[in-house]
């Protein structure tokens, strides 16, 4: 178990934010930082995933591990994430169907795109394993599977030239933005909620910046100097989101996705805002960590076990939604569901680490 660090800390915060935001309508939603900016926790999560790839594919002394080992490591992680997605989706569908039966309420079956599965299981089962049928709020892991799947290409190119990896990534991003390339949803119409062809930019940015920050004093110097710019961007983001000012997608010039604040295609405004957040908050961890005490340890423990915490968090969000609907909601219910959810997330992280410390449990 590693000591708390900035990456795990922020990833822990992103996980909690995603958990709370995935209970739409709850009281605490308006207190998450996602409500005060153009980008949100998803950007942070994907960027930090890229950053972690940078750390994971290098030895402690910073020398790159053998190529094949990196490729196999990423492949193994892809399989792990895929397995997590299939498991959480199956459990989510079971929870929705169970709640619909228990409450005698078919409306629940339409929840978050689940209707397709219950109405047309033959096609949807295929879409389910192909990740082309996604439930609402269960669409980040499919993105992550694809990103990890294509990560070896960028990692290997990055070994030769970081600039080449960035240029390739940016070119794919720009083309997808202009031509609206996305992976299709199936069955049903439409596309993926998170377009991997666009979102890969953040993963590659995270990966190359980790590498760069390790070796380049230039990057460190300039990120300090640009801190005021970061603050300006963050304040602008707060003003725009509080006043709900955003471009009208039917009035912007073509290609429209370049000018809107589109989440699916990760519009440039979101990238710029996220980079601004990064600049503004680069030194905050060092200031906060010693002062927050157990909160630092808590967030870092979530971040260290992000896949397990994210998966359980998705299911807890769904459970919280069902409880809110069943009970009618209200502040007391919100305090209960969010509070017990945070406790369960903490327990999940602890449990995963406890299990890995005791590798040979005797089977019951």
């Amino acid at each position: 178990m590693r000591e708390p660090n900035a990456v795990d800390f922020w990833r822990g915060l992103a996980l909690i934010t995603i958990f709370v935001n995935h209970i739409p309508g709850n009281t605490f939603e308006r207190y998450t930082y996602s409500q005060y900016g153009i980008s949100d926790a998803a950007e942070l999560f994907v960027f930090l995933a890229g950053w972690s790839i940078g750390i994971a594919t290098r030895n402690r002394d910073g020398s790159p591990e053998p190529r094949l080992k990196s490729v196999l490591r990423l492949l193994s992680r892809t399989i792990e994430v895929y397995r997590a997605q299939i498991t959480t989706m199956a459990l989510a569908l079971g929870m929705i169907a169970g709640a619909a039966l228990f409450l005698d309420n078919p409306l629940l079956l339409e929840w978050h795109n689940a209707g397709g599965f219950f109405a047309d299981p033959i096609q949807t089962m295929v879409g389910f394993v192909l990740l082309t049928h996604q439930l609402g709020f269960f669409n980040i892991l499919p993105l992550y599977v694809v990103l990890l799947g294509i990560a070896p290409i960028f990692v290997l190119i990055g070994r030769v030239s970081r600039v080449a990896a960035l240029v390739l990534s940016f070119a794919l991003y720009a083309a997808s933005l202009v031509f609206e390339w996305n992976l299709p949803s199936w069955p049903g119409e439409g596309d993926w909620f998170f377009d991997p062809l666009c979102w890969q930019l953040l993963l590659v940015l995270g990966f190359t910046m980790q590498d760069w920050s390790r070796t380049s004093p230039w990057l460190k110097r300039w990120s300090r100097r640009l801190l005021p710019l970061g603050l300006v961007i963050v304040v602008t983001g707060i003003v725009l989101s509080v006043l709900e000012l955003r471009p009208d997608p039917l009035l912007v010039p073509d290609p429209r996705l370049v000018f809107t604040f589109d989440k699916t295609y990760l519009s440039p405004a979101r990238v710029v805002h996220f980079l601004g957040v990064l600049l503004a908050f680069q030194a905050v961890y060092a200031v906060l960590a010693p002062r927050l005490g157990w909160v630092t340890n808590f967030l870092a423990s979530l971040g260290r076990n992000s896949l397990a915490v994210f998966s359980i968090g998705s299911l807890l969000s769904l459970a919280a939604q069902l409880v809110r609907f069943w009970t009618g909601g209200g502040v007391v219910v919100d305090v209960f569901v969010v509070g017990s959810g945070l406790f369960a997330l903490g327990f999940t992280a602890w449990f995963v680490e406890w299990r890995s410390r005791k590798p040979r449990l005797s089977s019951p």
Partner: protein
Amino acid sequence: MVRRMALPQTAALLALSLSLLWYRSGESAYAQEPAAHQDPVVKQDPVVKAVPPAPTVVSPPSVVVAGQGADVEAVDVALSPECRVPGSKLYTLARLGAVKDALKENRPVRVLAIGASTMGLGASATYPVKLETALERSLTNVDVVVESRGLQGEIASGAGERLRSMVAEVEPDLVIWQVGSHDALARVDLEAFGSALDETVQWIKGHAIDVVLVSPVYTASLAKDDYYTSLVRKVQEVAQREGVPLVQRYEAMRYLARSNDKGEGHLLGTQFRLNELGLRCMAEHVTRAITLSLLQPDPVSTGTAGRPALTLAPPNDAVGAKPTPPAGP
């Protein structure tokens, strides 16, 4: 997707329907149809009779008295037998200018269907496909292209935001929005829901795109839920305030629930069969509301253009023009 080229007859048909309207406007027939007619079976329009190739679009809903003894309301026989609901329970109508323009210009009508359940039953009969088929059957010789998108759980202004992206992507003439399911499940504050819906509908209309709202489903366990029925009423209010047609899925399914009650009581699964029926009928119900809304008169060019279109066909059990408040079974 069923794609057919629009034929030149379209303009003629439209002109026909418009002239028909002009002819009928004195009677204000649509304001009272269909239940208000005492002798509904013999109700026939002379103009329709006079023009043999009249398409379905111009036939006003002929009505028969439902067989149920307790319920002497007239059902709209233009619908399939299992989907028959009195028009007053089914829709409120308003003008659909953008679709009319598309018909006049003889180009395909692009429809964007948005909602929680964009899927139907079985691969060959999904809701978008059924909707497209039903619309093309109703608007003869018109090519209708239906695109459907599911919302992934967004609520209130978040749903509006998502909808804007979808509209910008598809650039439709008409948006059919099944609204409110996710909001109901998230127990969104009703005022916040209403104002977000108002804002989004205004935005769509502001871009010269038509909107038809579809209220959330009816199910027995929710009929006693005050919050839920208030939300259904909110959708009605917004539709009326913004002057857009509304398909009263809640009312229609409640009607079907009563007429389909075979004395099973509240056995597990009854509501699920009703839900299936509701989904199956939705394409027809939506089509009916659109077809009749297309017969709404154009606003007179002198001064009334900015006024929201009248919401016609008030439910017969409501006072004045107020929509039926959803109630328990």
